[in-house]
């Protein structure tokens, strides 16, 4: 276990180094961060002054070593566009995305897994058909389109929820539904397919031969379907935490990490982009380790390196 932890930490550091370097070079190669931070009609003098104040007039090599040194000390500096400390913005924005993802994935689990179980065990053909078409719809609805539709119906027409922004619990409802729809489709599908598969396996016959209740038989199958369901579910969660929420955050003007990534990149804001990238990386590495621990709990064969 300790060995795994060390290995993971090391791999995370290497990843962070590569990502931070990429940010630096991509920004310098493709863009002009100084020009981007000035109005379009800025004079060459203003430009030169700005470049000097941001340190962009120094040799690239010097800029690079300074930058990497600062990042290594977790000093990301101030955002070019907002002048506020970069890590500060990240730390205010991330909890909001956590909230959105938490509620969205909570909904996904609460609705998706039971629905998958019902679809896997139903003997009624119409339930199966209805479920499958709903699942397919959930899978193919674009997030941003659903977001706009939800705003139109539930905010503008019915007035039940606010259109956008953050505030009370009402602000969370629509964006988390929009965020949950794709993962919900996938969760239903994987639960249904793997559970149906597991229910055909010989150990289920053994369980039934012991005269166990259908509920207990289902528990046997669910334990085994769990690994696949957890894989899909955690994959979706990690994607969302890594900034996949950007579309939903944009549609609902939700000031989370996703929209911060979008802003930082479009402003070629090196300090902010680096801060976001390092923070997201950290979250992903930690989340992946949690997923690993969960796997070990779910399947003893993984814990003993047999699978």
């Amino acid at each position, binding site marked *: 276990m300790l060995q795994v932890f060390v290995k993971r930490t090391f791999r995370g550091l290497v990843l962070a180094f590569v990502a931070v370097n990429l940010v630096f070079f991509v920004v310098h190669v493709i863009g002009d961060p100084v020009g981007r931070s000035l109005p379009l009609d800025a004079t060459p003098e203003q430009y030169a002054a700005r470049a000097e104040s941001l340190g962009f007039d120094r040799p690239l090599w010097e800029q690079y070593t300074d930058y990497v040194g600062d990042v290594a000390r977790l000093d990301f500096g101030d955002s070019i566009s907002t002048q506020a400390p970069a890590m500060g913005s990240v730390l205010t924005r991330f909890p909001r995305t956590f909230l959105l993802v938490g509620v969205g994935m909570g909904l996904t689990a609460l609705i998706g897994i039971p629905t998958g179980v019902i679809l896997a065990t139903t003997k009624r053909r119409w339930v199966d058909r209805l479920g499958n078409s709903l699942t397919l719809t959930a899978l193919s609805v674009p997030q941003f389109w659903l977001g706009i539709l939800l705003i139109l119906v539930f905010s503008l027409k019915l007035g039940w929820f606010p259109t956008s922004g953050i505030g009370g619990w009402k602000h969370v409802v629509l964006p988390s539904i929009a965020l949950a729809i794709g993962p919900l489709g996938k969760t239903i599908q994987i639960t249904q397919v793997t559970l149906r598969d597991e229910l055909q396996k010989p150990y289920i016959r053994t369980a039934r031969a*012991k005269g166990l209740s259908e509920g207990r038989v289902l528990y046997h199958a669910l334990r085994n379907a769990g690994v696949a369901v957890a894989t899909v579910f955690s994959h979706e969660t990690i994607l969302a935490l890594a900034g996949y929420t950007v579309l939903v955050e944009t549609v609902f003007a939700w000031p989370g990490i996703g929209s911060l990534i979008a802003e930082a990149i479009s402003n070629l804001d090196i300090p902010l982009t680096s801060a976001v990238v390092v923070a997201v990386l950290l979250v992903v590495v930690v989340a992946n380790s949690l997923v690993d621990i969960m796997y070990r709990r779910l399947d003893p064969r993984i814990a003993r390196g047999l699978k």
Partner: protein
Amino acid sequence: MNQPHRNASSAPLLQASDIHVRFDVEGEIHHAVRGVSIDVAEGQTVGLVGESGCGKTVSMLALVGLLASNAEVSGRITYRGNLIKSHAELVALRGSTIGMVFQDSMSSLNPLLKVGVQVGEAVRRHRGLDRKAAKREAIRYLEQVSLPEPDHVYHAYPHELSGGERQRVMIAGALACEPELLIADEATTGLDVTTQAEILDLLSSLRDSRGLAVVFVSHDVGAVAELCDDLYVIYGGRSVEAGRTSEILNEPRHPYTRALLDALPGMEVRDRLTGIPGLPPLPHAFPPGCAFAPRCAQAMGEQCNEPPPLFTMKSGRRVECWLEGAVTGD
């Protein structure tokens, strides 16, 4: 270990007559079991033998209602003289009355649950014990199937045990329901010969100590025959010969039984294995008359295209073959 002529009480426990099983495979009907009748008396040991795919397992699964939903079962089943009238009544027999042990203990045990839990859950279900008491009972059953260090084995997962140990766990799970009849479906297939003998030993000692009735289902006549009071030879979804094991082994009447016994490896070195030429027919393509006729060395031509008559001998032995009529003249 073997007591073929034990004085088994003759009170009928399970009587199944004229069992038919039809599978609906995408609209095509596969008539896999075509009128098998089996009687098991209290404390009796019965063997069902025949090649793979002849309908042995399917008939047994039909008796406990464990077939897939595309199977249609007909026939008459009585348990202790009570006629089973519905699938629900059949399901109610599972576990507490009829226990089953399956082939391939690796896939027949849940890979993600501790084996002790898989034994204990049966106890909890049938005797309503709480978790702690169920655990104590589970350990007791693990001990009864001669697993060393049952406290330790309780916490093991199936992949951590050997094939023989897993099979013992499965037997413990079946015993934990305290059944009166145990069906061992190819319970020793896939185990090495020594382990096979140990498991058969265990099953017969449990049978003797608990007065269990046991049905051995096996493709290997040699492995189980000596344990069984009665033997049913199954072929093409029918029981082609049935009677006392000793009589059948001494004087097999049906050509298929003879072929099956001839195919057993002998002790002498000179013996070459004699197989049965050809393959058993598939359930969707059974020949119209005697299912064995196409492979039968003594087939009598035209006549064998008609369903063979049933001959019941004085000893109660039943043989389904046209030869019986020709030889004995009845």
